[in-house]
């Protein structure tokens, strides 16, 4: 049984057995849950199907959030990326659209997969559905890579945090981005050690990110932070695949993330008491949605 207490454990076990992290984790988790590997795989496959459906739902032109503060971002970006390509090119533009779409689907009470949280639910699909639909990577490989993402997430949850109320947005979008980066590296044929490096770089690039939701809603800035999450995941994965390593090991990055979270003021941990939530516009939007209420 794996302990999921360090990234190094995952790397060492996978390398010593000569398997991918995803294979190691599928085997371990199926045993831990008293399921067959096929059952565990099929459960993950269902999660991937929900992600694809969430992309489609969130790309609808009339997608609007419950509060009315946001909506239609996935559609706008999809149209722009398809017609003009944009600065990022059509592949990344499409990925941005998918991340926006899933986060928007969440804000409009659609069905999503928390990965690891609802607030960061657009990042894994933004990366993985894009590889599936644009790079034509087989579904089986994508689903397997979700076990790698999940394993990294388990270690992050144990060593640091995946809750915005505890560790700020670095714990939500940061974690999702690091999980996605590791999965991307594995999908592109990287080694377990390279998966760990991509995770490390993604975490390092989001250290200190605060959780400051306007009106306390999972919309502003959450939806767009899902986009930064995928951009950091893609760039971290590509750097590693180019042979650029992380100077700080993943486990140490996670320790740093925890200590940054521990020293983060409460106002910046999901309480809507600081950051963008306390800007004049943020406060005005809160009044617009909820009216004047006493605190």
């Amino acid at each position, binding site marked *: 049984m794996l302990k999921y207490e360090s990234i190094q454990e995952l790397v060492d076990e996978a390398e010593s057995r000569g398997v991918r992290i995803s294979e190691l984790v599928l085997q371990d988790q199926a045993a831990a849950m008293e399921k067959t590997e096929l059952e565990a795989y099929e459960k993950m496959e269902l999660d991937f199907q929900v992600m694809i459906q969430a992309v489609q739902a969130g790309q609808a032109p009339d997608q609007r959030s419950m509060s009315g503060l946001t909506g239609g971002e996935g559609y706008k970006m999809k149209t722009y990326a398809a017609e003009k390509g944009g600065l990022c090119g059509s592949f990344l533009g499409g990925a941005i659209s998918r991340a926006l779409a899933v986060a928007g*689907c969440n804000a409009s009470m659609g069905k999503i997969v928390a990965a690891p949280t609802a607030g960061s639910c657009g990042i894994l699909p933004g990366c993985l559905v894009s590889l599936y639909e644009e790079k034509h990577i087989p579904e089986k490989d994508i689903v397997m890579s979700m076990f790698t993402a999940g394993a990294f997430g388990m270690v992050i949850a144990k060593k640091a945090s995946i809750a915005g109320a505890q560790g700020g947005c670095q714990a939500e979008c940061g974690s999702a981005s690091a999980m996605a980066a590791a999965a991307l590296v594995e999908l592109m044929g990287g080694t377990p050690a390279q998966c760990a490096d991509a995770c490390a770089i993604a975490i390092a690039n989001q250290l200190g990110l605060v959780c400051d939701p306007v009106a*306390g809603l999972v919309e502003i800035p959450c939806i767009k932070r899902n986009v930064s999450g995928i951009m950091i995941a893609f760039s971290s994965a590509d750097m590693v695949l180019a042979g650029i390593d992380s100077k700080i090991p993943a486990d140490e990055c996670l320790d740093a993330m925890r200590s940054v979270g521990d020293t983060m003021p409460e106002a910046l941990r999901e309480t809507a008491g600081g950051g963008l939530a306390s800007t004049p516009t943020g406060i005005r939007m809160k009044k617009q949605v909820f009216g004047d209420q006493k605190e």
Partner: protein
Amino acid sequence: MNVFDIIGPVMIGPSSSHTAGAVRLGRVANKLMDNHPLKRVEITLSGSFAQTYKGHGTDRALLAGIMGYHSYSPEIRDALAIATERGIDYVFLKEDIKGAHPNTARIHFILQDGEEGTVQGASIGGGNILVHQINGMNVEFTGENNTILVMHQDQPGVIAAVTQLMHFEYAELNIASFRLTREARGGNAIMTIEIDGHPPEGLTDAIRKISLVTNAILVRRV
């Protein structure tokens, strides 16, 4: 924790605490109703629930759970209309419940046959809940395990009778946690028994037959 706690759950957004957790709180009430048709429900929201319920759809989520929907049911979005369609009279009230967790709701339901019940609990993050009161009596369970609530008269031997039945009739059954609360000595009391794994068929029926037990309810893992 397993890999599906990280990649998952599948849920209706936008918030695990204000939406998914709210559905699960509602589902506890649904389990208590035991398939009897609902006439009216009064839902009291406290703290953050009271302030932000509209933007998170907490009202729809609670009502959906009360009607038996899951945290992944697409019907949550339309729960208010579905309740009206079913002839359920619902009302949302705001109250500062003293000393309660910020995300607390109290659900008071009245069934068509006149029976009533109350559930009070909190959504404590990540879709997890803690149920604090059932029918005015203090309990404490999370809904993560299958939980058996045994309403009974506080008399010597009742607990022994229940646990002996559980042990001798169902060899595989293991109690994960046990808690007893009562109004007063000899008065109404409630056992909160969380069990490992799946509850065996017929367990609550068997417990109900025990002398001085007034009711036994299985609150399945929500």
